[in-house]
């Protein structure tokens, strides 16, 4: 696939598509992390940690790429779990801010760790990530998210997000759900980070900072934080958009900023809005009608609301 693309698209577009795919994967991590109501403001740092781990393993220890990636994901998972446990008792805003502080602290620690390159970053990472690696993984992650939405854990997470007390009253183990979900999302971030490191070939402490975490948050909210497609759309749209606006170096970001602001104002719920899960979107229903020649089950009634 990669060779097919490289043959038919200008290299510039291949790069953009791969970057968009990488961003999409990492943003999907955010979809999981935030599904129980948390607000992860250190997502870039989690991705970065997975990246460093994977990179060190392949570069310094010659581990096979997939295993190193897995190690990166596990790192993200573990740290995410730890972070979730620490912020369990805090209210949402303070927890979010703690993640912010955590992310920045990680950046500073990375700056000062010479083993991983310190301020100059970790270099010499082998190029392992290709289009063929990114997009299938992205599809996998989105599929996992889609299944998650319909799973007990997914429902539990959304219940925790909407009303933690009610969720607890219904027997949901809120702390466990929040922690697990956050850890899962952080693991995905670690995975995405590892992939990215093996594409960009350099991992800097800077890339883990607040600015990048905010970027991921923006992708997530912009695309629509309630459906599994939302973050993918957000990440890809907002990654590709600046490339489309390639007239001048600064003008394009100015236009990007204007578009971002305008769309957020006009469509407060994000571009892809929440589709209540009790009711299948019309075209999916139509599709299944075609497929199975059966009328889909009656909807559970409209329920809207939410943010």
């Amino acid at each position, binding site marked *: 696939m990669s060779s097919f693309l490289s043959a038919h698209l200008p290299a510039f577009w291949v790069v953009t598509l791969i970057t968009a795919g990488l961003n999409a994967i990492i943003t999907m991590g955010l979809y999981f992390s935030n599904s129980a109501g948390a607000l992860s403001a250190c997502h870039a740092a989690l991705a970065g940690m997975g990246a460093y781990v994977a990179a060190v393993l392949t570069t310094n220890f010659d581990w096979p790429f997939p295993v190193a990636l897995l190690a990166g994901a596990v790192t993200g998972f573990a740290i995410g779990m730890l972070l979730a446990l620490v912020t369990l008792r805090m209210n949402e805003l303070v927890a979010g801010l703690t993640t912010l502080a955590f992310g920045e602290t990680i950046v500073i620690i990375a700056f000062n760790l010479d083993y991983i390159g310190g301020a100059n970053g970790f270099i010499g990472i082998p190029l392992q990530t290709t289009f063929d690696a990114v997009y299938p993984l992205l599809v996998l992650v989105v599929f996992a998210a889609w299944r998650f939405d319909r799973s007990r854990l997914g429902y539990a997470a959304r219940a925790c997000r909407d009303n933690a007390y009610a969720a607890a009253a219904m027997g949901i183990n809120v702390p466990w759900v929040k922690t697990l979900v956050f850890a899962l999302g952080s693991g995905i971030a670690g995975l995405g980070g590892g992939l990215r490191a093996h594409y960009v070939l350099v991992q800097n402490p800077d890339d883990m900072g607040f600015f990048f975490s905010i970027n991921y948050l923006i992708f997530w909210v912009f695309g629509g934080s309630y459906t599994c497609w939302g973050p993918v759309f957000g990440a890809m749209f907002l990654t590709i958009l600046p490339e489309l606006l390639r007239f001048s170096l600064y003008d394009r970001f100015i236009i990007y900023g204007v578009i971002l602001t305008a769309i957020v104002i006009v469509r407060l719920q994000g571009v892809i809005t929440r589709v209540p899960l009790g009711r299948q979107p019309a075209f999916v229903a139509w599709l299944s009608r075609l497929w199975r020649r059966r009328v889909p089950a009656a909807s559970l009634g*409209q*329920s*809207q*609301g939410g943010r």
Partner: protein
Amino acid sequence: MLLQVSGLEVAYGPVRAVRGVDLEVHQGEIRAILGANGAGKSSIIRAIMGLVKPRGGTVAFGGQALHKLLPHKVNEWGIAWVPEGRQVFSTLTVQENLLMGAFGRRHGETMHARQEQIMDMFPTLRERRTQMAGSLSGGEQQMLAIGRALMSNPRLLLMDEPSLGLAPKVVRSLFDLAQEIRARGISILMAEQNARQALRVADFAYLLEVGEIRGGGSAREMEASEKIRRVYLGG
């Protein structure tokens, strides 16, 4: 007629809280909206005050259409609000709370005189004038909330569940206070769950159930009604 509400519709998303409500308040009256929790009483009050935009219907006050106005404008026209659960400004002092009440209709000197008047009405407030409003007891906060509303010299006072969370003795004196306010020429529209006390002082009452007016009549009529007795007055 002082206040006229016609065909009021208030909805929150797909939930219709108020369905085609008609009510009126005449000069010098106390009118009560009775109903259980969640019947929509607060929504009516909030819609009149301009805090929630009605989906349909009109609100007219002394001939002036109010339903499109922002709350501060509604206040300017002479309606004041005593919110559900007191809602005093807890980080402001008692005195500052009273001054806030007159924010929209300040007349310089008159404001000061007004403040004195209110504090005459509520001596406890005078005692505590420099205290933080958050440190007052429930009953005192209610006094403050009412005093604050009266500061703007309103023609109509909207009271949302004034007896909520108050001790029975305090509740009694609260409704006595309502009569006093009426005696001063200020009309009152109150939403209340405590039907007994409300009917004691009201001139006229409406019965609200699931967003619709299911009945209305003078206080005597309502007290005598079989249904009211059974459901709201304990037989």
